[in-house]
Structures are given as C-alpha cells and as structure tokens.
C-alpha cells in the first residue's frame, strides 16, 4: 500500500503462542486455564532460591511441530538465554528465552487468497510470565496489584515474521493464514481473547526514495492487541498518524504503543530509547538444546494434512472452491466432512449438510465438529436414509434435530417416531382419490384455474399420511388426477 505522499507501508509481526502442553516449560505444574489464582505453582515457577529449570520435552516437540509446519529450518543445536528485566509478574527477574540461536529459522506462510508468501524469520521458545490484576487503571496508578503465577512458566513460542506485509489487509491475511495452519497442528488453543495467542505488530512507513535497511526505519511496535479486527484498526490508525507526522516534516518516534479499543487510537507506552537493556546471556542452568535430525524428520512425517492440501482434496471430490475454503477454515469441519464421506456419504451433498444444518446445530450446542451426539457415522446414515427414499428432506431435518436431543442413531429415531416416507404410488393414489372426493368444491376451484387450491389438497394428503408422503409426489399425483394426462 502506497500512501499519497509516496511512502510505503511496512508491517511485520511477532506472534506469541502458548503451547498446550500438560505441564509448564520448566517444572511439573499443570497448565490448566482458569484455575484459582496461584494454585498451579511450585518453587520453580515462583522463582524460589535454589531452584533450577528442567526442560519439558513435550514443549520442544510441539514447538518443532509448529516450526516444521511453517516450513522452518530446525537448528539441531539451539540455546536458551536469559532476558533480564524487573517486573512484578516475572518471578526470577529474568525470562528464559532464546536469543541468538533460536530453535528454528527461515519459514514462510502463504497469504490466503493470494499467491504471495510472508517469510518467517525465526521461531524461538520461551516461558510465560505471571499475570497482574491491577486494582485501577494501570500498574502505575493502581492502589494495589495482585499477581497470579499460574501462567508463569507456561511454554510459549514466538513466531517472528519478516517485514513483508504492505497493508493492514496483508496483516489481516497473514494472521488468518498463520492461525489457520496452526489450528491443524493441535499445538495451542489459539485463543486471542484468553491470551493464548498474542500479536505484536511492527509498523513503519518507508518514504519514497528511501534506499536504506528497513530495520533502520523508525518503527512502532503495536502491543498485545486482542483481536485481528483490532490489529487492523490499530494499523490503520498508525498509518494515518505516522503519515500525518511525516507530512508536516515531523519524525516518528521508535516506541511501543498500545491500542485503545474505545477510541480506536494508539497510545504511547514506552519509548524504545528508554527501554530495558535485557543483558541477554546464555542460560547456565540449561544445556544447549540438541535435537537428532532423525527425530525432527519423524516430527515432520507425523504432521497432519495442512489446509492447502485439504482444500485440494475437497475440490478433487467436486466441492466448489468457495465451499472448500469454508471447510478448511476449521480443521474440525473438513475432517468431519472427510469422515462422513468415509462413512459412505457422497460429496457434494455432505458439504451442504455440514455447512447448513450441521453447522447451525453444532454451534447452537457449542460443540466442535465430530463431538457430541452427531458423529460422522450418524450423519452418513441419515444421508443414506434420504438417498434410499426412506426419509424426505424435511423428515431428515427432524431426525437430525432428534439426534441432538435423544443421542440416538437415525434408524432408532425413525423407528421410534414412525417416520417413514410414503412413496408407495398405489397407496398414495388411493389417498389422493379419497381426498379429492371429500373436497369436491376445492377440486373444482383448481380445475377452474385457482392454483392455490392445490396447496390445500396437498396439505390434506399430507395430513392423511401423517406427513410421511413426499410432497413432490403428492403434487404430481393430484395434478394427474385433477387435470388428467401429463401435468407438465
């Protein structure tokens, strides 16, 4: 995106992801979200005197899984470093992170709906800090602050992109694309509102004719914005703010700014010049992290199918591109479609069911796809009952609702409710005759050209069959009897 004054927008992201391990990165405390404050803590994650970190191998495995899925090169030897600073939520006075020898480097994310890629510079592991709850506006003005260390020590990965994005829309696409890929990996809950995924955006404006290094441009870091929508709003505001500054000959300060949801503006948090000197040095309590190339290959082999491959597979089944994109937006959705197909249901009918009533009902029951009463086998069976004419579409919807209510197989529901479509023409023909005879006036009206009269007669037949007749068949039979010959 090029501004009126010729400046180009340069955007990069640092995304922090909490890994969904059972225990913390350096101690055996559970990582469960929502526990009572300071109940999932121990001397290690509280930073008591004398404790040492013991690296959680599960966290390493998840970090490597994410890194290989994003096409990164895994450094077989990486190192942990201490990032030193004081803050009330940081128990040891330093965060164990990775500085100049990160776990992984040089990956990429394909931007959804484009043929462009955003390069990933590096992915490194680090530990979470605790959580401050201020009794007031901020730590500095609060009367008191409470610290919850349940989160302290939860494993994080930080995914650092190259400054490859050129507009807020690029930023939005990047985050969506990144999150979509990560959602297939089961490495994180990816919940922005709960903070298990956080993004910091770096934004600068490159004046027309600037030939220097992008890293040297004055850069604003937009911190901890809690939704993708607000990332876009924050970026848009920053572009306008910085452009206005440059237009009047001002300079953009290199600083950290926070997004204020209410006003839609960004506010200075601290200037980079005054920022901490983190005094990184190698963490002496941990050995360098050495990985076997063969093990990394195993992790790579064990990767699940990723969204691009899933979309191609869906389109191979004849699913429309647009529907395929919707299906792969949620790994549960596309996996459920595939499972239903594997249980015997044909494409593309599966898609209309899943994107229609199934999506509505799963959402209404707050269930992920494949969980709850509706399993792929039940859906496939339901669709088979339509296919063999046992159920009308309308009846099938009733059965689908009943599956959620009763948690029973479709066949059991059909039997229990006596739902069986009457499609026996002979039986229906008799009923149609009876209905016409009983409603001679209406039949005359129809013959006289009153089309609406037919609907009444269809309704009567449906009533006589307790709704089990197929309306289209009833319609046809009535027209045949009333008009004679071919109704068309």
């Amino acid at each position, binding site marked *: 995106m090029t501004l009126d004054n010729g400046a180009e927008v340069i955007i990069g992201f640092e995304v922090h992801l909490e890994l969904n391990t059972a225990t913390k990165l350096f101690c055996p405390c559970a990582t469960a979200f929502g526990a009572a404050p300071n109940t999932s803590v121990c001397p290690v994650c509280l930073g008591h*005197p*004398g404790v*040492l970190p013991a690296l959680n191998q599960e966290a390493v495995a998840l970090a490597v899984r994410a890194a290989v899925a994003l096409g990164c090169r895994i450094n077989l030897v990486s190192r942990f470093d201490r990032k030193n600073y004081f803050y*009330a939520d940081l128990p040891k006075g330093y965060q164990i992170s990775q500085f100049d020898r990160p776990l992984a480097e040089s990956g990429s994310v394909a931007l959804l709906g484009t043929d462009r890629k955003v390069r990933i510079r590096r992915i490194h592991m680090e530990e979470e800090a605790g959580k401050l709850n201020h009794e007031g506006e901020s730590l500095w003005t609060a009367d008191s602050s409470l610290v919850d260390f349940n989160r302290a020590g939860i494993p994080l990965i930080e995914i650092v992109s190259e400054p490859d994005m050129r507009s807020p829309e690029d930023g939005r696409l990047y985050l969506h694309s990144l999150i979509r890929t990560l959602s297939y990996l089961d490495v994180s809950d990816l919940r922005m509102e709960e903070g298990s995924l956080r993004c910091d955006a770096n934004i600068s404006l490159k004046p027309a004719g600037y030939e220097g290094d992008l890293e040297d441009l004055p850069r604003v870091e937009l911190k901890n914005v809690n939704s993708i929508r607000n990332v876009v709003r924050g970026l848009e505001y920053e572009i306008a703010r910085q452009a206005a500054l440059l237009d009047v000959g001002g300079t953009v300060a290199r600083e950290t700014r926070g997004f204020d949801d209410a006003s839609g503006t960004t506010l200075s948090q601290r200037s980079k010049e005054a920022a901490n*000197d983190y005094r*990184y040095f190698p963490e002496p309590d941990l050995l360098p992290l050495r990985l076997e190339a063969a093990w990394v290959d195993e992790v790579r082999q064990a990767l699940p199918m990723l969204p691009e491959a899933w979309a191609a597979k869906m389109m191979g089944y004849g699913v429309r591109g647009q529907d395929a994109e919707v299906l792969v937006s949620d790994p549960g959705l596309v996996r459920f479609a595939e499972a239903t197909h594997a249980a015997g249901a044909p494409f593309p009918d599966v898609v209309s069911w899943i994107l229609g009533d199934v999506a509505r009902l799963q959402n209404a029951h707050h269930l992920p796809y494949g969980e709850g009463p509706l399993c792929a086998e039940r859906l496939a069976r339901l669709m088979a009952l339509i296919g063999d004419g046992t159920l009308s579409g309308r009846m099938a919807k009733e059965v689908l609702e009943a599956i959620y209510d009763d948690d029973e197989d479709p066949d059991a529901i059909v039997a229990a409710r006596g739902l069986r479509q009457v499609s026996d023409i002979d039986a229906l023909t008799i009923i149609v005759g009876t209905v016409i005879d009983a409603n001679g006036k209406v039949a005359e009206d129809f013959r006289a050209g009153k089309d609406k009269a037919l609907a009444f007669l269809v309704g009567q037949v449906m009533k006589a069959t307790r709704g089990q007749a197929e309306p289209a068949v009833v319609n046809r039979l009535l027209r045949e009897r009333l008009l004679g010959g071919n109704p068309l």
Partner: protein
Amino acid sequence: MSGPLDLSLTEAVGATKSGGISTSELVRAYLARIARWNDTYHVFLDVLEESATRRARELEQLSAEEREALPLYGAPIAIKDNLVLDRGSTTAGSRILEGYHAPYAATVVERLERAGAVVLGKANLDEFAMGSSTEHSAYGPTLNPWDPARVPGGSSGGSAAAVAARLGLAALGSDTGGSIRQPAAYCGVVGLLPTYGRVSRYGLIAFASSLDQVGPITRTVDDAAALLAVIAGFDPRDQTSLHEPPPAVFPEASVKGLRLGVLSSYPDGMDPVVRAALEQTMRALQDAGAHLVPVELPEPTRALAAYYVIAPAEASSNLSRYDGVRYGLRKDAEGLYALYDETRAAGFGTEVKNRVMLGTFALSAGYYDAYYGRAMAVRKTIAEGYDRIFGQVDALLCPTTPDLPFRLGERLADPWRMYLSDLYTVSFNLAGLPALSVPTGLHSGLPTAVQVAGPRLSETLLFRIGRAIESVAPPMPAPDLKEGGAA
C-alpha cells in the same frame, strides 16, 4: 580431649551401626558442644536442635539391617546456609532472606538424610557465598577455631569451622571460586570441589551457576569420599548434573608411579610458610614414589580476571529474584520500582551490591563482548590449557591459598587482596575440574594445606593422592577453643 566428637565420619558411622554409641548420644554430644561454643565462634546461623534430636531418635528405631543400608547412619552434619531445607530458616547470609522458610529441600540434603545423616544446623557464610572470610555475612563473621582473631576463610567459613571445631562431624559447603577449599585450608580440614555437574545444584542458592558446585568438608579424605558417594549422581531436577555413578568410596593410598605436576614458579606475595609446607609435601610424595613434573598454570592472572567478570555477571542475574515481591525482605514504597530499590538497598550488603553492579555492567549492551564475551574466551583457553596439562601429568599439586588465615578486618578495606586469595582456586572452577584441599599440618598454630587437582571425574584419584598426603603429614589435633575471640 578424646571422645565421640573426635571420631571421624567413617569411625562414627561404624560406632553407631555397631551400637558402640547411639545416634542420640552422638547428636547430643554435638548439640551440647554447639550450645557451649556457637555464641563465641558464630558457626551456625540456625541450630536445628529439635529436628536433629527427633531424627536421631527415629534412627535408633531402625533394625540392624536397615541401619546397615545407611552409609551415613547417625552422622551429625552441618549444612551451609545457602542450601535450602524445608525446615528452619535459609538466609544465604543475607538480610534479604531474613525470616525466609524454604518450601523444599535441596537434592544434596535429601540424599544426606536418606543416607541416615542428621542435619545439625545451617552454617554461616559470606552473603550469597560472595567472599573469602565470612566477614560478608549479614549476621556477623565466623571466627577461626585455631585463632579467634582470624577469619576461617570463606565463603563456606561456617562449614569449615564447624568441622574443625568439632561442632559438626562433617559439612556441606559450596565452591564457586574456592569457597570450599580456601576455608578448609584455613581451618585445617579436608575440602573437595567436585567435577562440575558431579553433584546436583538443585536447592543450592545460586551465586554463579556455571561455576557453583556443592562439596564435602570433612576431617579426613576418606570422610570426603564417603560424603561425596552419597551426594553425587544425576538429578533430573538439575539438567547440568552428569550421568555418572558416584566415585568409589575407598581408594588406595599409594602414589607410586604417579606423575604429579608441580608449579615451576610462584607469584610474588606467596607466604613462605605456605610454600615451605607445599615443598615438604612434594618431597614426601616424591619419596613415596611419585614423579614430580614442573608445569605452568594456564593463565593464572587472566583466570582471576575472567572469574571476576563471569561470576558477578551470573550473580547479577541470579540475584534479580530478590525483589521483595514474593518472599524475604520487603520495604514497602510508593510504586513498584521504588519497592525494588528500597528492598534491595536495604537487603543486600556492600560486597553483594559491588558484584551485582559489576556483573550488570559486564552484561550491558555494548560491553558484553569486551567483558563477558572475552572472559568466556579466556575460560575456554584455560580449560584447553588444563586438557594439555592432564595429557602430561596425572594430577596437579599446588597451594590452596597463597597465604595463611588472615586477621579479621585486615582485608575488608582491600577487596583486591581479598580476591587474590582465590588465585589458586578459581581456575579449576572455570575449567569445571575437581580439586581437593588437604591439611599438611600446623605452623605457629595455624593450619597449612595443599591442593590436588585432576582431570574431569578424577575424584577417586584425588582421594588416593589426598590419603597419601594425610599419611605423610603430622596428625591434625583438635583446636583448643577459647573464649573471647576477636577483640
């Protein structure tokens, strides 16, 4: 004087197992002597009288078979107060941890207790183990049992004084740049710096993590071996600990045929008494069949410089957690940073502040390469230098300290001279190598000692040489404790 307090660790455990003396009697004898002398010599910061008495009684209930399985059955042991224990107080000699009660016990203490030892109390030390005299303890200095006007060395001065003064049968200390070996030498007892990683550091309050090791301080070399055998070995809670079985407990004593490196030159300022004691030991070992090979220590002065960059750098980070937020001292103030400032200003002593400042500077942006980076390069050079030396000789014989125990207060105003007493000790920490200090006798009532160092994991060999040194040295009597002390 001759009684239960004069038994060595090995002898005492033999006596408690055979029923010659009950564990309660032995522990009571130590507690009584502590009650008599601790106020004078200020060896313990916290005496665990109640738990030690209870533990001794519990041990008596064990069957003969169960006792036999405990290598330290009933042994009353002093623990340096930078090792955490889930009872009593843990201060690391600092005001900032005054009143702190640790919620867990160090691996080494757990291992001692599982082996049947009884913890008598927490021994005094220089604050956060930073010092060479225990004068930097926030709770006052420990006095040298051989001369109460002199320092016991440090930082494990309380541990060494306890063992020398018969206020503990043995002790655990920690050694970052000489903190076990120098006080052992000053107090006339045996002290071992184990190979880095040999002993778990979990529960050792960190000073400089890449240099710190826990080790034994004992009256005899055999006792040191017995204690090391219990505390050594991999600990999953310390990922820098080594997957190595503990070294053999009873090595042979002969030095026949061993090639021992000796210094080809000594720096200025070395006390002639120390040098004479060393040379006497060298001759005796030569007479016992060792070959003496002159060698040069790698980078002796640069080693000291590197040490005084690396150790403070790591310390500046390790001590960041003492911020008044979660435990220990807190000085309430307006705002978070004021709380940090006032808590740390009030809680840390001058020596600790000096080192935190030094270390913070050494790690600062723009200075890292010139200080920390260069120091790490020197460290590598030193390690390589020792690799070469131990390609030529089996072990190295050198002084533990260049001097005899100095007078209380003598060096407080002269930190550089204080630091110089680490001259012969720090380079083994930097290289991660084991080194053993063994007493060689008394000179004018003050103990002398030598140091034997070897390649990685050569503790068994060091014990063997140490035993030989013991056998050629005059027996160490018990010091005569006196009232009064430093005037």
